[in-house]
Structure formats: C-alpha cells, structure tokens
C-alpha cells in the first residue's frame, strides 16, 4: 500500500482528487493539508510514502515544503502538481530533489500511475512543463549580478548589499543597474522580482 499526503489549498480539487486516488487499490490518502506548513506537520506526523504538493500554497510553497521534507522525512518522495507553468519552478524543484513534476491537468488515473513511478524511485517530469522551462532559456545574469540581485530582493539598501558583498556602493550600483537593464526592469526591486519569477535567482 502506498501512503500519500495531498497538499492543495483548493479544497474542492483536493477532496475530489483524494476520493479518486482512494479508489485505486494500492493507494491510500493518509493526510490532507491546505497550506505548506500544514503539509509539513502532516508529513512529520504520518510519514507518507509520497507527498503530492501543490506548487502554490499559502505560506510555504510546494518546492519549499519539498526542500524541508528532504531533511525531515527522507523516506518521503515529493512531487509537485502545478497549474502555473512558471519556468523557474521546475528548476527549483529539481534542485531540491523533487521526483515528480506534473500539471494539474493530469487525470487522477495518470496521477496514480505517476505516484507509483515516484514511489518506486523513478522520476516523472511532464513533457510540456519541461519544454516551458527549457524555452525560457538560461539566466542572462552573470553570477555576480545574480548574487547581488538576490541580496537586493528583500529591499536592502545599496550600502547593505555592498557590505555583504564586500564591494563598494558604486560597483554594486553598476552591477544592479546592468542586471536591471538586461531584464528590462526600471529598478533593482522589479529586476529581482522578474529574475525570481524566471527562476534565475
């Protein structure tokens, strides 16, 4: 029997999916969660074999939950279900060891099949989501620009960024404005957001 944790903030979808998965002979849904933090708590309490995580949830998102699960519950295989084709999400998910990445359009029957694949140690990445991530290309930012932009993300002033990076304020400003120009952003805050959305940070 494969035990499954379902985390999705849309409870209609989660409920329907749980009912449909429970119809499969070899799958039991042992826990359901509506937020990332809840999912984490449920996973610690129930030790599911597979965690099926919605990408976008209040609080921690699916990838963040998967990253924590890797440390907290190593026996649990994490997979992400998403309705949004955000290019960056797949890369983030892969880098934290997520084993399945599927669109919400998947039918419950196929999802059950993918849960089995993931449970037996396989990896399942949806063809089209992968194509989206590939077509988004690689980051146009240099490693230095990426680093500085990630410091700028939480709204830190240039002076703070400069001291964190051990650079002068003027140099930091030059890097950040180069990054903003590459991303077509009017300032560093917008640039950081764009880069984050593309998964470049």
């Amino acid at each position, binding site marked *: 029997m494969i035990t499954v944790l379902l985390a999705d903030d849309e409870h209609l979808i989660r409920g329907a999916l749980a009912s449909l998965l429970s119809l499969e002979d070899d799958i039991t849904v042992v826990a359901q969660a509506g937020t990332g933090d809840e999912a984490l708590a449920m996973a610690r309490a129930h030790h599911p074999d597979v965690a099926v995580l919605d990408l976008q949830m209040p609080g921690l998102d699916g990838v963040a939950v998967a990253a924590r699960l890797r440390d907290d519950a190593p026996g649990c295989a994490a997979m992400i279900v998403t309705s949004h084709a955000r290019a960056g999400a797949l890369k983030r998910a892969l880098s934290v060891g997520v084993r399945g990445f599927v669109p919400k359009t998947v039918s419950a029957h196929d999802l059950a099949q993918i849960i089995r694949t993931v449970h037996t140690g396989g990896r399942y*990445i949806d063809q089209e989501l*992968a194509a989206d991530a590939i077509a988004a290309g690689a980051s146009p930012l240099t490693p230095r620009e990426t680093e500085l932009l990630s410091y700028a993300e939480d709204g830190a002033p240039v002076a703070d960024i400069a001291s964190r990076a051990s650079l002068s304020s003027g140099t930091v400003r030059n890097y950040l404005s180069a990054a903003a120009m590459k991303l077509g952003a*009017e300032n560093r805050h917008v640039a950081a957001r764009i880069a984050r959305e593309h998964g470049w940070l």
Partner: protein
Amino acid sequence: MSVEDWVERLGGQDGPDRYRRYALGSVGFLAVSEIGLWAIWVVQEDIDALWRTSVAVLGAAHALIQFLLWRYGLNHYLATGPRPVRLVAAFTALTVAMAVLGCVLLTSGPIDGGAMTAYTVWLLMYYAGPPVLALPPRVGSALVAAVSVASLAGAAVAGLRGSALVFVISASIVMVPFMAIASRATGWSVRLIEQLAAARETQARLAVAEERLRFGRDLHDVLGRNLAVVALKSELAAQLARRGLPEAVEHMVEVQRIARESQREIRSVVRGYRTADLHTELAGARSVLEAAGIDCRIEYGPAARLPSDVQSALGWVVREGTTNVLRHAQGASRCTMSLRTAGPAEALLVMENDGGSGAPPGAGTGLTGLKERLAGLDGTLATEQDSGGHFRLTARIPWEDGE
C-alpha cells in the same frame, strides 16, 4: 549620515531622475565657483573693510540666488514648477546693484581698470544663464542683453577705458551668449532625456496592453465555447441522473474530456506567445539539467545561422531529449549536447548522457513523434545505447551552410 547613504541619495534610481540631479549638480558647481571667484577678488583687492564686506555679501547672495534660480528655473522649464518671476527679479536687481557698486568703486578710486574688468565679466557671466532658462527665450535673452549692455555702458561711463574696456566688452560678447546657450541646452537635454524615458514607458505599456487584448481574445475563443458545452452537458447529465438514466455517465465522461482539452488549449495559447531560438533552448536545457544535478556541456556550433524551421525542429529534439534524460536517465551525471555541421549539407545535433535512456525502446518517449517531425524536413533521428549505459541521440537535418 554615512558616506554610502549620501552616495545612495545622490545616485538614487537610474535614468532621468539621476540625469536631472547630475545636471543640477553641475550648475550647482557654477554657483560654488562664483563664490570662490568673489572670495579671491575680495582678498586680492586692497580696499576698505566696508567695500570688501559689501562685495563679499552681495557676491555670496548673487551665487546663492543663482543656484536657487537654476533649480527653480529648471523645474519651470521642465513644467514641474511655477515660473520663478520673483527670483529672476531679485537676481536681476542684485546684478544691477553689484554693477553699480563696481562703478562706484571704480570712480571713487579703490579699484583699478583691471579689477573692474574681472568683476564685470564674472558678474555678467554668472548672470547670463538662469534667466534664459526661467523666462521665455526671447524675454530672457532680451533681459540678459539689456542688463549686460547697461552694465558695460555703466563701466565705460564710470571711467573704464582703453584695452580694459575692449577686453571687458569682447569677453562679455563671448561669455554671456555662451552661458545663455549652455543654460538652455542643459534644460533641453534634461527634458529630452525625460521625454525619451516617458516615450519608452508608454511604448512598453502599449505593447503590454496590446498583448493583453490579443491574449484575452484568444483565451475567450478557446474557453468560451468549451465552457458553454460543459455547462450544458453537465446540466443534461444531472437531469438524466435524477431520472436514473445511465446515459448520464457518458455525458459526464464527455464533460471530463472537454475540460481536459480546454486545459490543454489554454496552455497552447500561452505557449503560442513564446518563441525561443535554438540557442535559448540549448541554454535553457542546460540550466534545467544542471538544476537536476546533471553536469551539462554544450557546443552551439552553427545554432544561430540555421534557418528558423530547422532551429524549431532541433528545438523539439532538445526539449524531448532533455525531458527523456530527466525522466529516464536517473543515474546520469553528465550530458553533452553538440550542434555541428556534418559534411557540406547537413546539420547534426548529438545529445549524449551517461545514464542510459532507461526506457523500453519506443515506449512513450516521444521519439516517434520527433522522427515524424524531422522527416518533414528530410531529417532523421537515431538512438543508440551501449552496455555501459551510454546513451546517444543523433538528429540530422539537411542544411546548406551559406558561409
């Protein structure tokens, strides 16, 4: 406040705001230089303390008003402030007062022609800029010309003679128009920069709006019809179910099919707005593979020179091949993708990894679809796997390299 904070403050955001601050900074420097010149003049001339103080105080006030007038004049020029008429009046009055003071000093004896020359030229030079920026160009030029001519005439009447007079007139003829023109040019360049920035912003907004319209239209085309069918069919199914009729199931299966199809169609609409060249696809594939911990090397070869249909077909190969590596080659730690020309008339894309394909041949790997796609361009696709788990995918497409 630390130095960094000041740098942050002065630098601030990029673009027009910064340019405007720099322009203001450079005219601010003019005011500082005026104070400096008056200080030198006051120290060098051997005159009474009263005269000395008068020139120092008036000169400092002149420099200060000069700066204020630059600032408010620029604001007015850029249509972000009222016309600083009173400041222009004060500046003019102060200039005239200083010119009169110079004449008095010359006639009553404490200064000679040389000192008067520098005094008058500096006064008129610093006066000439701001009024032409703050006032309409004709009015400003007329005012500056009138004040200059009057001051020069006053100096002549007060006893400035010979080469000193010639020098002061010729220097004024050069410096006064120069400052007036530089002043307009400064304002004009700041305005131009701001207009360019605004135009760029408008253009971007328009493009976004247009895209949104197109997107909305497409989405409506795709979804509107399907949702209507879903509503109708599920209503029918509910009615049938109430009557205990088994056809309800068929209708619900149909609803399910339509809903899934709509989801696919939405995604293809979204995808339709995205075009990527082969170079981008290769770089994107590498970034995805590296996220999964697979070391990836790319040889771009002639990627950029390939015609778009070849690029798009090979882009499919890259996406499909990459997804296969992610899905099936779990043990892979290394992957290479190289694009080359093979012989005189062929482009060759080879993808290799050390994790094997893992998949049973032809089983849902999408390779069959790829073969068909490549066949449309007379291309071929071949895969081979050795016993060491080394997997290689080779796509060939006929292509005449024009270079």
